[in-house]
């Protein structure tokens, strides 16, 4: 019987060209328009990232004291005067912490994107609880001394910088992580050169060049505007399936078709199950068509097809939950107003928060959190991660959230659906 509801629902959608145009044609057109029109803005004319990160730098050591300690040690060594002079000179010039703070993180190039806040070690705990920081770089005690010994004497492994990332700001924190890694690699190279005796006091740490695209960073693949909007528009327009299904169902009530269904001794639960499953399937098909067509036309590759299908199914379940809730509410207030309100106001609001029009999560932490609470926003994060090359485990929380969202909507619809006496 559920099969009949599904078949009927599909036939009704297929026979409605206006709906099809809105659900399939419109998002594709918008992807094209937004992708090309905002491509330069999104991708950045200068290839620079659109990121504003606040980073805490916690220095537990004392750079000058470390250098002095190293210089004393060198002077007491049995080395030639020339060797001693070169080492002391190099040691005084290296200043790894100052370089990281002023020349790397504080460079003119990065200053536009990163704000470095020097924090006392005693406040580390407090900073770690502060969500406004994208990352914390902790310089351990004796770091400079270790770096110098490693680079110039080759005696021990250098102390590593500690790096804490804010999981809620994975894009920006990974960006910073990349810079720090690059910084460490340069010092490793410096150290290797030192051991080989190739360096002299004129050697300077090379600039760390930052490349990036729209909120992309790191070693993961960049997201281009077309790809971004493919996801943004698809997760937005799939929400219309829910409102349309709600409207169709209310229309069935208005036309007394629903009475006929009840008179066929079909329980309201079977009816709601039919609504839920058909909405899930419609959403799943719509998303696959949208992604399929857009990916083919714009040569977008999905690195993990299985993960993509799992996220798509989870989003479809969430849309199914919304569809069944909107149906229940329409029936309860005996009006199509709930569907219409969802279609005209909530979809736009969800899309704005979820980042369908622009990466709104970058505006503030609050926006980011709020966006991730919307089914479209949550699924958008997951899709973008998959497109960047992340695996299924990195998007599990989004999948779980979407499934929970779906379950919550179904439970709410069970509560909202009117009792028998108020059905007809």
């Amino acid at each position, binding site marked *: 019987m559920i099969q009949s509801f599904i078949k*009927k629902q599909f036939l009704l959608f297929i*026979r409605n060209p206006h709906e099809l145009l809105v659900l399939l044609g419109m998002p594709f057109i918008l992807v094209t328009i937004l992708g090309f029109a905002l491509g330069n803005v999104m991708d950045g004319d200068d290839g620079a990232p659109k990121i504003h990160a606040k980073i805490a730098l916690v220095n537990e050591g004392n750079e000058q004291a470390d250098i002095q300690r190293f210089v004393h040690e060198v002077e007491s060594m049995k080395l030639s005067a020339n060797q001693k002079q070169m080492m002391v000179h190099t040691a005084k010039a290296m200043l790894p912490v100052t370089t990281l703070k002023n020349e790397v993180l504080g460079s003119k190039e990065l200053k536009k994107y990163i704000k470095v806040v020097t924090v006392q070690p005693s406040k580390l705990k407090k900073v770690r609880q502060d969500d406004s920081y994208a990352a914390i770089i902790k310089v351990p005690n004796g770091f400079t001394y270790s770096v110098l010994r490693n680079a110039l004497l080759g005696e021990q492994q250098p102390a590593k910088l500690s790096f804490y990332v804010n999981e809620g700001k994975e894009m920006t924190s990974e960006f910073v992580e990349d810079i720090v890694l690059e910084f460490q690699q340069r010092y490793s190279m410096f150290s290797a050169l030192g051991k080989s005796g190739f360096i002299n006091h004129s050697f300077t740490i090379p600039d760390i060049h930052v490349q990036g695209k729209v909120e992309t960073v790191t070693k993961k693949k960049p997201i281009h505007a077309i790809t971004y909007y493919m996801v943004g528009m698809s997760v937005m327009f799939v929400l219309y399936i829910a409102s349309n299904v709600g409207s169709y169902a209310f229309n069935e009530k208005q036309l007394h078709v629903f009475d006929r269904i009840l008179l066929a001794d079909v329980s309201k639960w079977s009816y709601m199950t039919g609504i839920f499953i058909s909405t899930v399937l419609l959403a799943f098909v719509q998303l696959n068509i949208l992604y399929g067509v857009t990916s083919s036309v714009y040569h977008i590759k999905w690195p993990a097809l299985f993960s993509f299908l799992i996220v798509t199914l989870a989003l479809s379940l969430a849309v199914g939950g919304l569809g069944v809730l909107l149906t229940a509410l329409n029936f309860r207030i005996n009006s199509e107003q709930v569907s219409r309100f969802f279609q005209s106001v909530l979809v736009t609001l969800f899309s704005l928060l979820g980042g369908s029009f622009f990466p709104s999560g970058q505006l503030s932490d609050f926006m980011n959190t709020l966006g991730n609470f919307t089914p479209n926003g949550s699924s958008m994060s997951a899709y973008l991660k998959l497109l960047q090359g992340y695996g299924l485990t990195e998007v599990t929380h989004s999948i779980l959230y979407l499934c929970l969202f779906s379950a919550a909507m179904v439970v709410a619809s069970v509560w909202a659906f009117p009792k028998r006496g108020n*059905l007809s």
Partner: protein
Amino acid sequence: MMLEAVELTKQFKQTKVVNGVNLYLEKGEIVGLLGPNGAGKSTTISMISTLIPPTSGDVRLNNKSVIKEPSKLRKVLGVVPQEIALYSDLSAKENLQFFGRIHRLSGARLQKKVDEILEQIGLTDRQNDLVKHFSGGMKRRLNIGVALLHEPEFIIMDEPTVGIDPQSRNYILETVKRLNEEKQMTVLYTSHYMEEVEFLCDRIYIMDKGSIIASGTKEEIKNILSSENTVEMKVEKVQEPFIDALRLQPVVNHVTVQDRVITILAPKEINVFRLLFKLAEETNTVFTSVEIKTPTLEDVFLHLTGRALRD
């Protein structure tokens, strides 16, 4: 097999839209439920068909209540709603298939039933056309066809001929008659078209303002007016003073005016002709004809409620 409504009452907030309705249907009969718009017919039907629960009273199938367990009745009951309860974007065949499936028909049995219904309602040639392209009459026929899919023993038809052309109307009436004769289907037929009820029904319930005000066979109901005559006067021009004067006469029961035809009810034992001609002369009314007619159900309704069915 018998279906009955016992003291059915439905109250919405402070308004009683149906008040203590009693009626019954016995196997193989066609029963008419007659009443003007707003009389409470559709609410009564909704309660009998278990779509809405009554505020008080009961619906019984073979003397067992079906209010709490509607399944038993729903299996043997077909309902033709007043509205076109169909999917306009599906074809006639697809509609029948969908409703057949939800009635648990499938495979060859469903196919056979769909073909049979299409034949019965005369839409075999148009089975693949979308309902939205159908005429009003065709939609009405399909509306009936859907209710017949599960071969119900009882069928309730709520004004199934509203808004269609006379040809389609006759087709539907003939179909109802045929279903009753050939399949022994029990029919509860509501209408405000008196002639339909007269043509189809064995027994009639007349309903007004939420209550049954008369019931019985056609003859029994017409006998309500055995003591009265219906006098129909055709006039050249309707003069308002004449109508007012008629209404003031104690021997004249009910006056209706339609175009240039004035109808009154008056006791048989009183010769009203002299009175009518006197009033006509006083108000400059010119008769083109005056005749005494046998009472119709319409006259009975007028007598009982003080207004015409389609007022």
